[in-house]
């Protein structure tokens, strides 16, 4: 079970209902799809969740998909951290749920 704690005024209880974990993989499932866009392995990058403030590696995210797109959620609060849609000759990358990514590049 996980719990999304954010509430909206427009539709009460839209988010605060019980959940059952569906089929998902960890953030390593993003390695292949993101390697099409980034030259570094982003799965080891550290990010801070906009929803709950917890910092952790991309590899720790819960990844749902693959269709219609990849949705990576914070393992702690359930918030959407990253989305990736690939199709129509383009990739759409949404990083709405991450404050910043620390990408280790060496010296």
């Amino acid at each position, binding site marked *: 079970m996980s719990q999304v704690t954010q509430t909206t005024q427009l*539709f009460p209880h839209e988010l605060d209902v019980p959940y059952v974990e*569906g089929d998902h993989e960890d953030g390593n499932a993003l390695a292949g799809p993101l390697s099409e866009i980034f030259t570094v392995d982003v799965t080891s990058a550290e990010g801070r969740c906009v929803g709950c403030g917890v910092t952790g590696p991309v590899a720790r995210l819960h990844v749902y*998909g693959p269709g219609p*797109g990849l949705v990576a959620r914070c393992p702690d609060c*359930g918030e*959407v951290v990253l989305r990736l*849609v690939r199709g129509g000759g383009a990739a*759409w990358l*949404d990083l709405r749920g991450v404050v910043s990514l620390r990408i280790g590049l060496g010296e």
Partner: protein
Amino acid sequence: MAIVSRGFQGRRRPSDHRLPPGQYEVHDFPVLSAGPTPRVGRDIWEFTIVTEAGVRHSWSWPQLMALPAEDAVVDLHCVTKWSKFETRWRGVSLDTLLADVETEADYALVHSYGGYTTNLPLADLMDGQAWVAFHYDGEDLDPEHGGPARLLVPHLYLWKSAKWVRGIQLLLQDEPGFWESAGYHDYGDPWREQRYQGD
């Protein structure tokens, strides 16, 4: 009954002509998820239409059950390219739910338990084209398929048929939903293969 299938008379007819471009037929019912599955109890379930003026029309589960329901037999077309023919649903027509709603809105943003959203023109929810569906194949709708109730708008790609539907926000201007804000088409007509922005 809004849509009567001709398929119950016997052998399935050759179905190629019912397949939109780029689609293939499946016989199972794939489950696609963008997150954990909400388990919404019927005791707390509520469906709300909010107009552009902020006027709210809400139905509890017993109130929804008290409304006239319709059976619909429809083909489903998922943007991930599978289509499923002659699926049997029961639900309340959006025409019934919108009957007493005063609005000048042209657009709808559908909200689901769990935070999912999807946008479509309000006209596509009317005239017998859409239902809040609560039975699939004669049974209560499984949570995996959007139960206790989901939107059913079968003439558009299935991502518009929001699972775990919570309500509809009526808007004067179009506002992209969950997938529409990440590359997917604002309208999503399978017969025009409107999968991605620009299609």
